[in-house]
């Protein structure tokens, strides 16, 4: 060995590279694993019987799910439901569900799906269509929540929670909230006089940007996809008017430039600090702005539905919310079906609203006087959800939202014109829905 130290050392170094590189591949290989995507061939598995089941959902931060399950278990001792909590990160919940569906795991009987995942899971053949023995009565529900869970004219999951955007405004500076976008922009002079920013939503490059851009486009009468979900429809004057409204807001300084770094929380902080006249955000902000120690607007803010394009038409909020779907691999689908009906029942919906501020899916609850007293924003939220449009319902949602985010961000930050951004968005959304690449 001492004879030729140079070569042996070099060889050792090379094999060290190989080892390092192999470790790299290992990490990468793990990402590529398990590409099996079931398809329709897998239909009709599991069993249509009763028995113990598992309900899977993201971390239950407000502690409202276990009490509901306890209630169910007390009434159904032989069909006990077990709660499995995932992390509180949406992406991780999605990936966990995908892995378990791919593994055909019968232990994931009922799963909570974000409404943007439903069509993907449905098209993969993982969710039990809610037809035949599993038909659900949706007449009491807010229609938009049902549309969001409907793929190919078939309902695949039962809406359990909803959410819609609200306009928070400073009633000390603006006595009556604006009804239209133009009216709101004209009120920006009030903000200027008071030395504060006028309007903000969520414009950082993440899912919130898709929500806000889709809202603008839908509000001005445009759409992202055709009704059958097979064509991109962004090359219309309406879509241009929608995106232009936001772009112009940034150009005029009515939307502060730092809003391109805003997610929900930054906007909320700015509003609570009294530095923002109008804020588009979710209902969760209401109780925080009322009670936060640092909130300077406790008594001086109000809520309104999102402003529309023309008078008499409310803005079209993007729809948030989750639904409960039954896994096709479940052995106890009968119990699973009864359980999702239970989650939708008025009793549970009311509980979840009062104890966890979760927006219900049953329309009538929004008019309940005692509930309105506790949650004064309910009437506005109802208007918002009634006018809400689900984000594009397509199995290729991840690629579609990426296409919207990237191009809208370029337009809002001024590195691309509205026309160029929309034309690129049209092409990339079309590309996304026609192949998934």
């Amino acid at each position: 060995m001492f004879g030729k130290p140079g070569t042996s050392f070099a060889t050792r170094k090379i094999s060290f590279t190989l080892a390092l590189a192999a470790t790299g591949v290992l990490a990468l290989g793990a990402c590529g694993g398990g590409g099996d995507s079931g398809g329709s061939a897998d239909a009709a598995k599991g069993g249509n019987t009763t028995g113990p089941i598992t309900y899977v959902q993201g971390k239950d931060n407000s502690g409202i799910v276990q009490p509901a399950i306890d209630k169910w278990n007390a009434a159904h001792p032989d069909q006990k439901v077990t709660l499995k909590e995932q992390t509180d990160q949406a992406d991780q919940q999605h990936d966990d569900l995908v892995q378990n569906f791919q593994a055909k795991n019968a232990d994931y009987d009922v799963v909570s799906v974000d409404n943007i995942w439903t069509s993907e899971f449905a098209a993969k053949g993982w969710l039990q269509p809610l037809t035949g023995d599993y038909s659900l009565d949706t007449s009491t529900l807010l229609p938009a929540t049902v549309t969001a869970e409907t793929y190919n004219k078939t309902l695949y999951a039962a809406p359990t929670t909803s959410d819609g955007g609200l306009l928070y405004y400073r009633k000390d500076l603006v006595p009556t909230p604006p009804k239209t976008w133009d009216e709101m922009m004209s009120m920006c002079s009030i903000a200027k006089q008071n030395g504060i920013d006028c309007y903000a939503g969520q414009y950082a490059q993440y899912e919130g940007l898709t929500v806000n851009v889709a809202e603008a486009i839908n509000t001005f009468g445009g759409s992202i996809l055709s009704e059958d979900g097979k064509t991109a429809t962004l090359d219309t004057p309406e879509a241009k008017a929608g995106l232009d409204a936001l772009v112009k807001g940034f150009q005029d300084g009515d939307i502060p430039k730092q809003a391109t770094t805003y997610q929900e929380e930054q906007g909320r902080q700015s509003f609570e600090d009294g530095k923002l006249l109008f804020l588009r955000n979710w209902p969760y902000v209401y109780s925080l702005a009322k009670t936060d120690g640092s909130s300077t607007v406790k008594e001086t803010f109000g809520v309104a539905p999102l402003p529309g394009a023309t008078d008499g038409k409310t803005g079209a909020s993007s729809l948030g919310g989750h639904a409960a779907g039954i896994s096709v691999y479940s052995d106890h689908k009968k119990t699973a079906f009864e359980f999702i009906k239970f989650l939708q029942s008025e009793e549970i919906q009311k509980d979840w609203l009062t104890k966890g501020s979760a927006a219900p899916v049953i329309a009538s609850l929004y008019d309940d006087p005692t509930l309105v007293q506790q949650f004064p924003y309910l009437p506005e939220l109802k208007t918002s959800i009634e006018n809400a449009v689900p984000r594009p319902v397509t199995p290729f949602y991840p690629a579609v939202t990426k296409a919207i985010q990237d191009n809208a961000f370029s337009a809002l930050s001024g590195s691309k014109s509205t026309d160029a951004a929309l034309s690129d968005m049209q092409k990339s959304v079309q590309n996304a829905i026609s192949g998934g690449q």
Partner: protein
Amino acid sequence: MSTTSGVATGEFAQGKPPLDPGKRKSLHDGSGRKAAVLIAPTIVLLAIVILYPVISAVSQSFTKDAGLDPATGMFVQGGFAGVTNYKLWLLQDCGSGAFSCPPGTLGSQFWTATGVTFLFTVVAVSLETLLGFTFALVMHRKFKGRAILRASVLVPWAIPTAVTAKLWYFIFAYDGIANKILGTEILWTGDGWPPKAAIIIADTWKTAPFMALLILAGLQVIDESVYEAAKMDGATAWQRFKHITLPLVRPALMVAVLFRTLDTLRMYDLPKILTGGAGDTSTLSMLVVDQVRTGFNAASALSTLTFLIVFAVAFIFIKFLGANVTEQRAPKTKKAA
């Protein structure tokens, strides 16, 4: 060397004295088998955890991603893809010729992502090396409070990357400390150069201590007497640094640089949390993860490409590093001979 000792143990274990050459040969074979049996579990384990995923990823990269059956609206298996998945990335070919991927598709971002990954690697590793070297030289001196300094320099390295990224996210917020101190209104997580600078700053802050530590280890093996001799010969501080410290610390330095380079090439968590890819800061690894959510097979092609890139960089490094190490060891060998 290992073979000879293997034979020796083999003979010893079997309790037989060394015999005539013929017998010896068969014994040799027996111990070879025994070695194979002993190594087998390791080989099998490596095959399962390394070989299988690699082969599976590569073979998947030649399969089409599942597409929708227009009649049923359900996904169907894609079938053999040839090199389409590779053309998607390398040629940005979304189906209608080279560079047909419109902005906003993942396919259109391969070269941007490759560029920005290398930008981060070159700039961040250079800064980390400079800072790390400086820290190491300071920590190498003997002074009061050295232990505390050494420990405190390591703090950034000890903080998990996700936490680091969140810390810098708050620092770089519009109302954050960075803008307050600088008196600027820069959108650090917006568009243009600021998000890139933000990521490089955060990465340098986090990993310069790692460099410092590895370089310090290299400094400590240099014999003090070499410096004393150089001093006697009238070498200035700069000459001592250039002709003694630098060449002698070089092996440790190169290993540190190699580690950091490979690490930075596969950077994911820091930019993901800090900027979320805003302003073209998506690295190759982020692109892989985004693609996994859209289609496994194209993602397999992308991870294979990423691997080849990382491998090529590592190979160039080792060749370069190996050559230098040999050169350095050559005179020693002569002495030994």
